[in-house]
C-alpha cells in the first residue's frame, strides 16, 4: 500500500509516502497521536567571522549560521515486516541512513542511525544532528538529564543563575545529554533516550535535536592543536540508537526511567560452539 506504517500492540509510526520521512507517532495504549517529523541536518562549522575568530573545534561547537542544512529532504525506503520485527530502512545519502524498528511488546520506537564518513570535500566542517519536529507547544522549555539521574529544566536563551547575554543562539542553547532529552506541553511528552552522551537542545518550540557526529577542519585554539578530523583522511562512521517514547506527561517518567536502565545495563551476549562442553566443577 502507499501508506508506510509499522505497528505493534502499543506503538505505530507512519512515514510520509512521498519523502520516506517519519511523520507521525501513535501511542495506541494511551490513545495519543503526535505528528513527529524526524530528519538529519548538518551545521556548517564556523572558521571564525567578523564577530569572533573562534572556530568550531573539539572543545567548541560554533556553527557559522543558525539554520542547519538538510542531509536530504527525502529517503529511499525499504520495509521489512515479519512476526518478530517491523522495520523501515531509510537511506538519506551515501553517508547517512537509519533503520526505524518496532519489536512485539516494545513501548518505544527504535531509530538505529548510521552516519559517516562525513564528506568534507567542500572544505566545510560539518556537525550532524538528528532533529525531531512536533506541534507540541513547549514555551521555550526542554529537559535534559544529568548522568541519568537528575532531570534539569532548560529554558532557551536563559540561565537560572545569571543574566545571560546570548551571543551564540545555537551553541549557547546546547546542553549535555547523558541518557535522555524530552519536550512536553504538559499533556503529552516526547522523550528520546540516547545510547551515549551527546549534545542536545530545543531551538524552537516543539523541536528537539541531538548531535550524532562531527568532522571539522580547523583547530579551535583551545589546546588540542589539531582539528577534530579522524586520521587517514577517511573519516569514521558511527552507528547508534535513539529510543523514542510518546507518553502522557503524567506517566512518562515510569516509561523512560525503566527503559533507560534496560539500555544502560543491556543484556550481554556470549556465544559458544554447539554443546559438547567439558563438564566443569570446582574440584
Amino acid at each position, binding site marked *: 500500500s502507499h501508506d508506510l506504517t509499522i505497528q505493534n500492540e502499543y506503538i505505530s509510526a507512519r512515514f510520509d509516502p*512521498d*519523502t520516506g520521512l517519519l511523520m507521525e507517532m501513535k501511542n495506541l495504549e494511551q490513545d495519543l497521536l503526535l505528528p513527529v517529523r524526524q530528519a538529519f541536518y548538518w551545521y556548517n562549522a564556523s572558521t571564525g567571522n567578523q564577530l569572533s575568530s573562534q572556530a568550531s573545534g*573539539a*572543545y567548541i561547537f560554533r556553527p557559522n549560521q543558525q539554520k542547519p542544512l*538538510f542531509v536530504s*529532504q*527525502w529517503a*529511499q525506503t*525499504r520495509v*521489512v515486516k*515479519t*512476526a*518478530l*520485527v517491523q522495520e523501515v*530502512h531509510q*537511506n538519506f545519502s551515501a553517508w547517512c*541512513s537509519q533503520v526505524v524498528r518496532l*519489536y*512485539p*511488546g516494545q513501548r518505544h520506537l527504535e531509530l538505529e542511525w548510521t552516519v559517516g564518513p562525513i564528506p568534507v570535500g567542500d572544505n566545510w566542517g560539518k556537525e550532524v544532528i538528528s532533529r525531531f519536529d512536533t506541534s507540541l507547544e513547549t514555551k521555550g522549555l526542554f529537559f535534559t538529564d544529568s548522568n541519568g539521574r537528575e532531570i534539569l529544566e532548560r529554558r532557551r536563551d536563559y540561565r537560572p543563575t545569571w543574566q545571560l547575554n546570548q551571543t551564540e543562539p545555537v551553541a549557547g542553547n546546547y546542553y549535555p545529554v547523558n541518557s535522555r532529552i524530552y519536550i512536553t506541553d504538559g499533556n503529552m511528552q516526547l522523550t528520546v533516550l540516547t545510547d551515549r*552522551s551527546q549534545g542536545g537542545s530545543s531551538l524552537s518550540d516543539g523541536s528537539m535535536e541531538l548531535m550524532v557526529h562531527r568532522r571539522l577542519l580547523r583547530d579551535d585554539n583551545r589546546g*588540542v*592543536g*589539531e582539528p*577534530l578530523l*579522524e*586520521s587517514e583522511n577517511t573519516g569514521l562512521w558511527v*552507528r547508534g540508537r535513539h529510543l523514542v517514547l510518546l507518553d502522557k506527561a503524567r506517566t512518562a517518567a515510569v516509561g523512560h526511567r525503566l527503559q533507560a*536502565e*534496560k539500555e544502560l*545495563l*543491556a*543484556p*550481554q*551476549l*556470549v*556465544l*559458544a*560452539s*554447539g*554443546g559438547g*562442553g*567439558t*563438564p*566443569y*566443577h*570446582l574440584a
Partner: protein
Amino acid sequence: AGDSAPLNEAMAVLQHHDAVSGTSKQHVADDYARQLAAGWTPCEVLLSNALARLSGSKEMFTFCHNLNTSLCPLSQTAKSFQVIVYNPLARKVNRMVRLPVSKHVFLVKDPSGAVVPSDVVTMPSSNVQELLFSASVPALGFSIYSVSQVPGWRSRPRPPESRFQKSLSWIKSSFHVRSLLVKPS
C-alpha cells in the same frame, strides 16, 4: 586466569573528559582505544571462567564485538551454536536477540529445550541475514539458548529486483528529486 584489573584501570583513565567526549588529539584517542582493547582480553577469560563455573560446562566461549555491524564469525558459519544471554539488571528482562547468520533456516530452543519462535530477516541494504528470537533472562542471571541449522532448508533470498522494478524504483527516486526540485520544499 582471567583478570578485570586492566579494564578497570583503562576505564579509570578514560574518565578524562577528552576520553568521554572524544576531543583529544588523534594519537591520544588511539591510545585510549588500545588501553580498552588490552583490558578487554583478560576480562573475556574471567567471564568465560565464571560462565563455565556457573553453567557447569567448560565451553570455548566467543565474544562478538561487532554485532552492531552484523559481524560474528561463529554465528555466521557454525551449523549449531549456543547463545548465552547475561542480564545485569536486578529484574527479569525480555530481549530480542539479533545475530548475523548464513542463508539457512534455524531452530532455536530455550533453556528448557522448547522451540521458541525465530525469524531470519534479510537486511535490504546489505543483504546480510539476521536471526531474530526473543530471549527471556532472569534478574542478575543468564539464559542459554541453543541454535541449530535445519538441514536441507535455505532461507528465501529476497527476490532480486526485476529489471522493470529496478527501473521503476529508479524512476520513483528520480521523480522524487524532480518533484522536490519543482515543489518548494
